[in-house]
Structure formats: C-alpha cells, structure tokens
C-alpha cells in the first residue's frame, strides 16, 4: 500500500511541475482593434470653449464644455473623456490647425433713421474696406444689414436688405465684382445695443461687412 501512496504523490508532483512549454498552447485569436474616433474641443478667440454633446453608438452621452477636453469613442461605443492639453493637440493636429482659414475681417457702417444712404463717418470706413479688397487676390465679401426697432418687423427686414444692397451697389460701383458679394438682411433681430421696441438707436442702424 505504501508504494502506491508514494507513487500517487510523485505523480501529483510530476503533474504540478510540468514545464510551461508542455502545456497545450491556447489558441489566441488576434483581433485588430480599430483606432477610436476622437473629438477634442478647442478654445475660441477669447480662450473660451462652447459645448459639444457627444452620443456614442452604444447610447453613452457626454458633454464636452472645456477647451482641450477630448473624447475617444471605441467601435463598441465605449467613451473615455479626458483633458488633452494644447501641446498634445498641436502635436497631433498641428497641420490641420494651421490650414484653417484666417478669421474674417469685419467692418461696420451706419445709416440715418429709415434710410439706406451711409452716414458721413461711414463713408471713411467704406474707403478702408475698398483699400483692403484691393490688397486681396480673391476676396469674398458678406454684407449683412440691420435696423433699429422702430417700425414693424417685416418693414425692418426689408429696410435691412435695402441697406445691405446699398453697400453692395457702392462696392460694385467701385469696380468690385458683384458675384463675390453676398447680401442678407437681419431686420431688427440682432441689435448691437438691445433696446425696447420702437426705440431709435443709431448704433443698431448698421451694415456689417466681413471680408475673407
């Protein structure tokens, strides 16, 4: 009986001390993990960031609201959010960032009540604008008219468009191609200085001109 026990013990140790290589090699399936989709919030001109609401394919929802906060979203919809830092963003996306177009240059001209002829001060601003256009190879111009809150909303929509068209006419008369000018009128919707209805406000009777 004793030899049988000794044999069992020896056999057990032999099994325990099997070298690693003699074990059957488990079959590992190598799955190529696709890189995650990435999002990173950038600061605006004032160093602030807006808000992006992120929803992944698995239904996870995150709010990004701080500059340089980034998220990685895996194929299965798993989301990880963390700060990236300006240097990391620059390293990864420097080329893309430097390819962004420059911010448009902005000019403002003003009008008398109800009218679409420029105020005397604004004629000088228009001269500056023309000089800038002459310096650029292929400028595009956006002209947006506004009114104060005197009068009906519909009438002010119309007046704001006439103001924008008046600026376009002046630029075309100066030799700038009309098909590179987009005009629109915002009526009284976007006052520079908020006022009650029916208040005359010279700073709101304006046309914004942006050049890019």
């Amino acid at each position: 009986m004793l030899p049988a026990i000794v044999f069992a013990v020896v056999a057990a140790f032999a099994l325990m001390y099997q070298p690693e290589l003699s074990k059957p090699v488990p079959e590992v399936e190598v799955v190529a993990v696709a890189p995650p989709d990435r999002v990173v919030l950038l600061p605006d001109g004032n160093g602030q960031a807006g808000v992006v609401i992120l929803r992944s394919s698995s239904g996870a929802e995150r709010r990004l609201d701080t500059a340089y906060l980034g998220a990685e979203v895996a194929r299965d919809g798993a989301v990880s959010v963390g700060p990236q830092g300006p240097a990391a963003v620059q390293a990864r996306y420097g080329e893309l960032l430097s390819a962004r177009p420059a911010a448009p240059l902005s000019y403002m001209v003003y009008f008398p009540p109800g009218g679409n002829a420029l105020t005397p001060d604004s004629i000088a601003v228009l001269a500056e604008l023309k000089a800038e256009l002459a310096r650029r190879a292929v400028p595009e111009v956006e002209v947006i008219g506004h009114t104060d809150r005197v009068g009906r909303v519909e009438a002010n929509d119309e007046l704001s468009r006439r103001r924008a068209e008046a600026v376009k006419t002046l630029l075309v008369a100066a030799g700038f191609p009309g098909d590179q000018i987009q005009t629109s009128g915002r009526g009284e919707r976007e006052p520079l200085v908020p006022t009650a209805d029916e208040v005359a406000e010279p700073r709101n009777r304006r046309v914004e001109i942006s050049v890019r």
Partner: protein
Amino acid sequence: MGITLRDSTSLTAGANTVLTLDRYEFNSTTHAGAMQASLQKGSLAVISGKLPKASPDSVRFQTSSVTLGVRGTSFIIESAGE
C-alpha cells in the same frame, strides 16, 4: 482644404478625409436652419457659425461610432473609418 458655409461655419479637412454634407439649410434673415455632416474617415477642424446660436441642436456631425450635437464652438473630429 477648407470651406466656409453661408452661416460662417468653417470646415477644414485633413489629408485623406472623406466628408459628406448630408443636409444644409440656412435662412440668412432669421438664422433658422439645420446642418448634418458625416465624416467617413480622416480629420476635420470645425469652427461653428451662426446656425447653432439661433437653433441649438440643429447642427450635427457624425462618424460610424459617434454623433456630435454642436452648440457654438470650435473642435476637431477624427475617424479612422470603417
């Protein structure tokens, strides 16, 4: 390369980028409208324009695994593709 849309949204695409503008509507008087874009692959730098200020939740960018609702901001989105 970059494009600027009528509401001043600026889109700059990196190398080997495939982007589809699925929907774009913008009323230059009321600023109402909507935009939906799909990034199939590559990278895109976005500076949002006037649309999301007037109509929150009207601007969406998506990849195969994520959808972004944009409320007036600047960001980068990158996708390795399918």
